[in-house]
């Protein structure tokens, strides 16, 4: 029971393996959550293709592309953190984690700017805001924007969760021993890459598929 967080494990190695496995199971669960919503989108896309294609062109491709680059870079810094933690180089590990969280915040800021732009253009069919979409088939365009806001905000919530967990991990850095540090970096890293991959699917589906 030495050096493990849970009384159930004999060695930190076994506990780390269990943690990683648990994170994979959780990712499987999360994949079903996003899978359900992607499925809704794809079914709607089959039904209302032209309306969705026209509506999709109103999204900002430059901002979307910028955000994709930001998030992929954050995955790179997270991978660095994992590698550095394996070599027990704790100080650079912290910096890599800080960079990861900072890039996550950048993504959220850009996303916020994008939302602001869409709301001011009257493309946000929520909270009773005016919906002023001039293109063809505005009813199904409204469906598209409803899905767009649902999917991207759900993703953003997951990203916020990741940033909060990284912040908490750094806050608890000093009292936790090396085994716990590595274990947490590996688990949080897996989650971060997953949230990144969700965006890698969301970006083409929402922004690119119709161009």
């Amino acid at each position, binding site marked *: 029971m030495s050096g493990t967080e849970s009384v*159930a494990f004999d060695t930190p190695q076994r506990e780390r393996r269990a943690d990683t496995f648990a994170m994979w199971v959780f990712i499987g669960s999360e994949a*079903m959550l996003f899978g359900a919503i992607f499925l809704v989108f794809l079914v709607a896309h089959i039904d209302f293709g032209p309306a969705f294609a026209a509506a999709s062109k109103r999204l900002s491709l430059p901002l979307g592309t910028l955000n994709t680059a930001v998030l992929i870079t954050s995955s790179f810094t997270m991978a660095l953190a994992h590698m550095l933690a394996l070599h027990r180089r704790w100080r650079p590990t912290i910096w890599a984690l800080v960079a990861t969280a900072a890039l996550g915040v950048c993504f959220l800021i850009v996303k916020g700017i994008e939302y602001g732009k869409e709301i001011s253009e009257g493309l946000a069919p929520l909270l009773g805001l005016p919906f002023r979409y001039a293109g063809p088939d505005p009813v199904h365009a409204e469906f598209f924007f409803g899905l767009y806001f649902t999917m991207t905000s759900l993703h953003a919530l997951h990203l916020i969760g990741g940033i909060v967990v990284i912040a908490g991990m750094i806050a608890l850095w000093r009292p936790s021993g090396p085994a716990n540090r590595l274990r947490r970096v590996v688990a949080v890293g897996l989650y971060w890459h997953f949230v990144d991959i969700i965006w890698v699917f969301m970006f083409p589906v929402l922004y690119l598929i119709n161009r």
Partner: protein
Amino acid sequence: MTNAAMQGTYLGQGSGLRAWLLSTDHKRVAWLYLISLTAFFFLGGAMAVLMRIELATPAGDLVSDDVYNRLFSLHGIIMVWFFLVPSIPATMGNFLLPLMIGARDLAFPRLNLASWYVFIFGSLFALFAVVAGGVDTGWTFYTPLSTLYANGFVSTAAFGVFVVGFSTIMTGINFIVTVHTLRAPGLTWFRLPIFVWTLYATSLVMVLATPVLAASLILIVLERVFGIGIFNPDLGGDPLLFQHLFWFYSHPAVYIMILPGMGVVSEVLPCFSRRPLFGYKAVAMSSMAIAVFGFLVWGHHMFVSGQSAYAGVVFSFLSFCVAIPSAIKVFNWSLTLRKGEISFETPMLYALFFLGLFTFGGLAGLFLAALAVDVHVHDTYFVIAHFHYIMVGGMVTAYMAGLHFWWSKLTGRMYSETAGRIAATVTFVGFNLTFFPQYMLGFNGMPRRYHTYPPEFQFWNVLSSAGAVVLAIGYLMPLFYLGWSLFRGARAPDNPWNATGLEWQTSSPPPPHNFETMPVVTRPAYAYDMKGLEHERFSPHREEAAR
């Protein structure tokens, strides 16, 4: 209960509120769940009794139609999400899984305690919805009723169910990781008790299906609160989409509710017939098969909802397929009894009742899987009777079987065997009296969810209402004699049923970290046919006594 005899057991580790509410010991968390689930069971049950009293006469004289709608909605919501889904896994599963696999605790003890707090947090929303004025959508939250027309506290209740889903997923992940990483030396997969197999299969379904329910409930709340119309045709959405998402969760959830019950029965039947479980591997694998097939049959809830006829045929076929692994289990349980030395203690009575009631309810499921018959009985009392035979006759009966079987392990006390046998029999009689008439009502065309009905249905309705009273007595009795045994019951020996299984090899109640010496397993499960079994199996307790 904290006296000299409990020193050194998990019950002797502090008796204050803090010691219970903050303990990460899986055995104490199991008690937290047991107490909260019992409260929900009787709350949901009280609503059912009110409905049955209303239905004793054709006219709507006790409650208004609006109140009746809220009663059946809340009865469903509470019973499904606040009792049945967590029932056996969160109580007996929580308590026994580490004991059965020879572990000190679940893989993530703090996550386990957190799951209970999340459960309570979510249930507060549901209870608020009850007190504030109720929900009238039915437990299924069908759109567009729930999004456009219902005037109750739909968002509150849906959010409560959404939160409780997190607790389910936490439990599921914890169980899966525990089974993979913490089995005792020598405890291979095919030496696991079937109860562990069914908990494992259940956990897989919990982890993979619950998020889809979360997605559909989020979308309902988004539509009601933010006006994003994913299910609203006026805003381009599709109401049928909700049914697809909802049943993609809720049909697998039926197996979340029944699989652990099958596990309990697989423990009890071999023990009280002194025979190894017949066809162990087939029973283990059929649990996994049920978990997998469970994901492929959701469309059988939508035969008359306007899905394509081809989809209907495929879903009908796949629904018949689920009957195969279920039947494998029933045949194997029956063959376990063959040539056994059967004795009829309380857990065995409940297990045998399970066998009968589950088979009866399952066969009615075949009627419902048949396309043409389903058109006739869809949304009638036939469906109500079918799933109550599985959920109440099956799962709740198995829950009672398990509670009595492991009560001595949970508490270190024995309950009154006579009272137990009487309660089991009263439950069986009351159950059949309540729900068999509902098959007749449904087949004759009485629709579900109405608080008035034509007078020709009164005969069967009166029988059913009378049965509900008997059933209520059957469920209230254990509350008293089990509660009494907590304080006055005889001290339980470590293994009162002379059962196999690692949980019986430690003391009753177990020490804080379950085993004084960590066990090593050298035998298959259910080795009831091996001579001198107790002496050959590893027993930390006896070893200690011998020292």
